[in-house]
């Protein structure tokens, strides 16, 4: 038996923060509440029944907890489970829960609740947005109050990481119905009130089992308009806006000693997604030509105000297993033209480019279109709403090119799904992912992940643009927020006023 206490994917932090020295002008009295700005409002607050990032951005680590959790550097730490044992065949995980944990309604959190939550997530009628996380579970057994035994159908080296997702948090059967509207979790903050369209208010949980948090209350305020976000932060209505929607105004905050501008990285690989089954694009030469036509830095500067890290494959650069393959698809328009000629498109080619609403796609799309035009590829741009995009592009696969950020952590396995919208179908890659699923040895996993990154880069499956950065503005006296976003969260457990 190996007893493992932590880290599955230790991740080195990207030291990109632009901290400002200087005196702060804030008031002297001790503050015990903080207001966090968010661009999107969560549709509801049940992280186990929806994909909206905004749900986890409110409740992850604050209201709900799982067996394990992500830390700000992307590593995985124990949460409700203080430790776990893995059987030698890698099939049985025995989680040891903290004793004396209670839900916000006072009821005890025990092994039965864990069994209930995991069984609910993998049930046939489950509406869990990440149901695949639980697909490998064969049985869950509550051994005693604080011991849960999970049996897998095949060894899974990433199982403990999967349990750190927001979609895998533990709920009680008595309060699961109200999770969407008035969640009852076990975290250091209790849900207090939700003024829909405006804000969600949390208060400190006095009976929290772990370290008490510094804040007595916290408010998440939803402001979608970039101008309004600027005004709200400037006026002091918002103490921190981690995913600040108006990067063009960041210079004003950098110059102001009352604020810190914090730039971190996310799990969002932003790609020029390519329909590998479309007529012209099924030819790898055309896809390679597109890759060489793209000038990543120009897109990052032009569409993202310089925030973003170029990527050459579908993997987060801050991950220790990342391989920098940007050189393989370097900006080389002459090479593009040659490849297009070899593929029989020397007289030009017209492709559709369907863009969802985020500015990385809309602004980035215009630049990509200009870059493609320079090598002889014309694009027909259409701007879609999310619902239309999901219908036409994601489900209907009716597109040639699109730009989208894949924000789930460690999602290179989507390339093993032949029916996924970009329709990459390669048996070797699928075998590689199967091998990865059952591999628990860190060194071998790392080698497999590197091989996978190389394979999709060699096949030029998609145009790999940049890793989405997260630029935020924070009151200079408010400390303890995450700089990077290894998962979609605003973890307030360490947040305090100076």
């Amino acid at each position, binding site marked *: 038996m190996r007893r493992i206490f932590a880290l599955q994917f230790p991740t080195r932090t990207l030291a990109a923060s632009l901290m400002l020295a200087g005196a702060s002008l804030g008031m002297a009295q001790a503050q015990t509440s903080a207001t966090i700005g968010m661009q999107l*409002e969560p*549709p*509801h607050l049940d992280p186990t029944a*929806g*994909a*909206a990032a905004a749900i986890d951005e409110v409740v992850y680590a604050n209201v709900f907890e799982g067996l394990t959790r992500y830390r700000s550097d992307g590593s995985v730490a124990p949460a409700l489970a203080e430790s776990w044992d893995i059987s030698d065949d890698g099939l049985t995980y025995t989680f040891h829960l903290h004793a004396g944990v209670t839900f916000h309604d006072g009821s005890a959190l025990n092994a039965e609740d864990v069994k209930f939550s995991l069984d609910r997530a993998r049930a*046939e*009628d*489950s*509406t*869990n*947005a*990440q*149901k*695949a996380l639980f697909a490998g579970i064969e049985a869950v057994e509550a051994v005693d109050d604080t011991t849960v035994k999970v049996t897998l159908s095949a060894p899974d080296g990433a199982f403990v990481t999967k349990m750190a997702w927001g979609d895998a948090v533990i709920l009680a059967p008595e309060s699961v119905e109200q999770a*969407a*509207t008035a969640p009852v979790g076990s975290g250091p903050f209790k849900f207090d009130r939700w*003024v*829909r*369209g*405006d804000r969600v208010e949390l208060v400190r949980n006095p009976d929290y089992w772990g370290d008490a948090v510094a804040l007595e209350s916290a408010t998440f*305020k*939803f*402001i*979608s*308009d970039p*101008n*309004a976000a600027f*005004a*709200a932060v*400037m*006026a002091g*209505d918002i103490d921190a806006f981690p995913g600040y929607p108006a990067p063009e105004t960041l210079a004003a905050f950098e110059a102001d000693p009352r604020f810190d501008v914090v730039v971190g990285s996310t799990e969002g690989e932003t790609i020029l997604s390519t329909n590998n089954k479309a007529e012209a694009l099924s030819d790898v030469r055309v896809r390679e030509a597109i890759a060489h036509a793209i000038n990543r830095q120009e897109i990052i500067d032009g569409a993202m105000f310089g925030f973003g890290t170029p990527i050459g494959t579908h993997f987060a650069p801050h991950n220790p297993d990342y391989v920098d393959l940007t050189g393989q698809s370097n900006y080389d328009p002459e090479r593009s033209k040659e490849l297009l000629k070899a593929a029989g498109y020397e007289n030009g080619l017209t492709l559709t480019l369907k863009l969802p*609403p985020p500015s990385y796609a809309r602004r980035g799309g215009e630049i990509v279109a200009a870059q493609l035009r320079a090598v002889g590829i014309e694009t027909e741009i259409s701007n879609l*709403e*999310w*619902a*239309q995009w*999901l*219908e*036409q592009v*994601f*489900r209907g696969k009716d597109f040639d090119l699109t730009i989208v950020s*894949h924000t*789930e952590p460690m*999602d290179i396995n*989507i390339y093993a799904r032949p029916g996924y919208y970009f329709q990459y179908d390669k048996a070797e890659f699928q075998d590689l992912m199967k091998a990865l699923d059952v591999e628990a040895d860190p060194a071998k996993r790392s080698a497999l992940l590197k091989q996978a990154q190389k394979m999709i880069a060699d096949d030029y499956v998609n145009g790999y643009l940049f890793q989405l950065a997260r630029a935020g503005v924070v009151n200079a006296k408010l400390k303890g927020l995450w700089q990077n976003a290894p998962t979609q969260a605003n973890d307030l457990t360490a947040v305090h006023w100076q």
Partner: protein
Amino acid sequence: MLAFLTARLLTMIASLLVASLVIFIMLDLVPGDPASLMLGLNATPEALAALREQLGLDGPWPQRYLAWIAGLLRGDFGLSYTYRVPVSGLIIERLAISLPLALYALGLTVVIAFPVGMIAAATRRSWGDVSIMGLTQLGIAMPNFWFAIQLQVLFALVLRWLPAGSFPGWQDGLWPALTALTLPAIALALPQASILARVMRSSVLETLHQDYMRSARAKGLSAAGALVKHGLRNALIPVLTILGLQFAFLLAGAIIIENVFYLSGLGNLVFKAISQRDLIVVRSCVMVLVFAVIAVNTLVDLTYGLVDPRLRKH
């Protein structure tokens, strides 16, 4: 008068029914599946099917339409797909901002437009009239979101007299709520007041040339006295028409201003619901707005009768 009222009421019900059918069919035609929007890129087909069934998205449209109308008649607006709470509660929550804001803006519109329009009419062709007309032209031409941002920067960020946005709710008392709504109400009211002042001016000018005005002056009333006592009533008919339309606009069309001042009003709710394909919320909100517009128009029609007894006969 009774026949007049009955006729108005029947027209109102018929309009509502037609509107409900149009709204339902149009929204049913909009592409986009609420379930896949909610579950995102990694959802499995089974999870989607389960959610679709849970939301009641399957079944032929006439059946779903009738179920919706039957619910509306019982006062049950249904559950929001995304928020999973009753739609009626959402709408009431939003009306607590949108209605006071619309009334506040309407009040400012009247307070500005009536005197300004009358002064312009009374001092026709003087420099006062010309500058008022110029300013109202500017008020109409100016994009109201731009004007709103200027107000916000000046009064909230620089002078710090008023909050930059947000709405504290009514539970903290009248004063914080009113101060929060002041800048948005001004931003909304100014263009409307400019329009109304111009209508007021031309309407007053027209009545000034009527025979009864000359008679009023002839029997010894002053120019101002004749205007207030005899002219104003007659001049109000076109002004009321415009005012009714403006109220409907202020209630439903404040969304841009709501965005600038991060207020969560009805316009915002509709906008977000559309982008999230929360069709049941969109349908119900639009019905509420249609009802408000029709009700206000009916009310305006009835007021014509009060202002001008001649119209009661028809």
